[in-house]
């Protein structure tokens, strides 16, 4: 792998890791506050999985740089500031109501699922291997979030109204998930990652069909929001000050 591709791949892994980390963080906020006890447990599992996936991607980035895995992952999470995070705004938005949370998770899971299927064939073997493993967990997430989206989409007038409102709010942010990262072309040409346009088309087709089936309409008049992963909402700063509070009490200490 040439140095330019290597750097591009590291950057790509960081975008994936940051997405999973921040989404996992938001999901973990439900633990103890979910609509029913069974879901406190189920959603904590999803949070654990997402944070676990983030760790896998940070560690692959560590390997590419010859860094120690655990120390690198912790450094990336606890000692970067807002401007250095590369997650999409979709995952940093506050958790909202259960409809918002569940629909965001569905939109993300569906994207993640389709991307992992392709990444399982990445020409970078460690990437392919990790994607294959993570995919197993994503199949379950998707089963869970699809089951929920269907029931809330079709359940009562109120649940339908909340789901549609959540979709309207989330949609422009979700589209940003599919935007190609820096030097994605280079990585696609090298067979490291799937083509982002093809992925976007496939994802759009899938979510439009499924959401339609559960009574939800994709909004057509979405306003343009900044798509770049270098732009963040104020929510991320608040999230990080919470996330990093204890670790930064003494950066050299062992916790």
């Amino acid at each position, binding site marked *: 792998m040439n140095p330019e591709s290597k750097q591009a791949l590291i950057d790509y892994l960081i975008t994936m890791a940051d997405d999973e980390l921040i989404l996992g963080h938001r999901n973990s906020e439900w633990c103890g506050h979910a609509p*029913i006890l*069974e879901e406190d447990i*189920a959603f904590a599992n999803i949070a*654990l*999985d997402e944070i*676990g996936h983030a760790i896998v991607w940070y560690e692959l980035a560590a390997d590419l740089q010859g860094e120690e895995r655990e120390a690198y992952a912790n450094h990336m999470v606890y000692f970067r500031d807002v401007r250095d995070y590369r997650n999409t705004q979709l995952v940093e938005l506050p958790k909202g109501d259960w409809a918002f949370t569940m629909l965001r998770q569905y939109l993300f899971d569906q994207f993640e699922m389709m991307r992992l299927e392709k990444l399982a064939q990445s020409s970078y073997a460690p990437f392919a291997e990790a994607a294959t493993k993570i995919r*197993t967990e994503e*199949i*379950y997430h998707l089963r869970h979030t699809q*089951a929920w989206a269907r029931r809330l989409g079709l359940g009562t007038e109120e649940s339908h109204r909340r789901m549609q409102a959540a979709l309207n709010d989330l949609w422009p942010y979700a589209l940003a998930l599919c935007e190609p990262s820096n030097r994605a072309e280079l990585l696609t040409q090298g067979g490291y990652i799937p083509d982002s346009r093809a992925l976007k088309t496939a994802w759009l087709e899938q979510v439009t069909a499924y959401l339609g089936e559960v009574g939800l309409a994709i909004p057509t008049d979405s306003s343009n929001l900044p798509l770049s992963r270098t732009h963040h909402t104020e929510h991320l700063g608040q999230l990080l000050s919470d996330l990093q509070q204890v670790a930064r009490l003494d950066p050299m200490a062992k916790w």
Partner: protein
Amino acid sequence: MTDTHTRDTQWLRYMVLHQEREDKPHQHAGTVHAPDAEMALLNARDVFVRRPECVSLWVVRADLIFTCTQEELALHPDWIESLQPSGNPVEKYYFFAKLTQKGQFTHIGEVEAQNPTHALKIALQAYPDTHGFAWWVFPVKAVLKSTPDDIAVMFGPAAVKDFRDQANFHALSVLRKLMRKQEVEESHES
């Protein structure tokens, strides 16, 4: 105060039966609340397979299980004899028994019967060596089961969640060492 408690629903109760290994029978794990069987199976996975010890899960609505205990039977030894088929069509029932005082309800076998009490009567005759202390019978068709394909997806992930394993906390050996050191020091002092 709103009237939310009068409107509240915690959904239906489903019994969860799990199988730890292929060569072991299904055993009772507990219950989950769920609006329907599909969600019950998903919830059962999340509630009962947080640690790696499962190859198959069954869920069945708790109110479809016919239960009877040894004490109930002993009160009227002739009751079981008096039970008659009801004339309903024959269907398959699972038979579970609690074989030891401390044990869980365990899958013993299947019987064909016309109703739950009839199924119990047949089961107690069909499995005379596995009577135990209490019994469950429920229709096979009332059960939703995980499939072999689900093993990797539903139960595999727990295996890599090693942070739940108490064996992975090493600080304790530090504590033991400190305590031994202290004992040695104290014995020197005295």
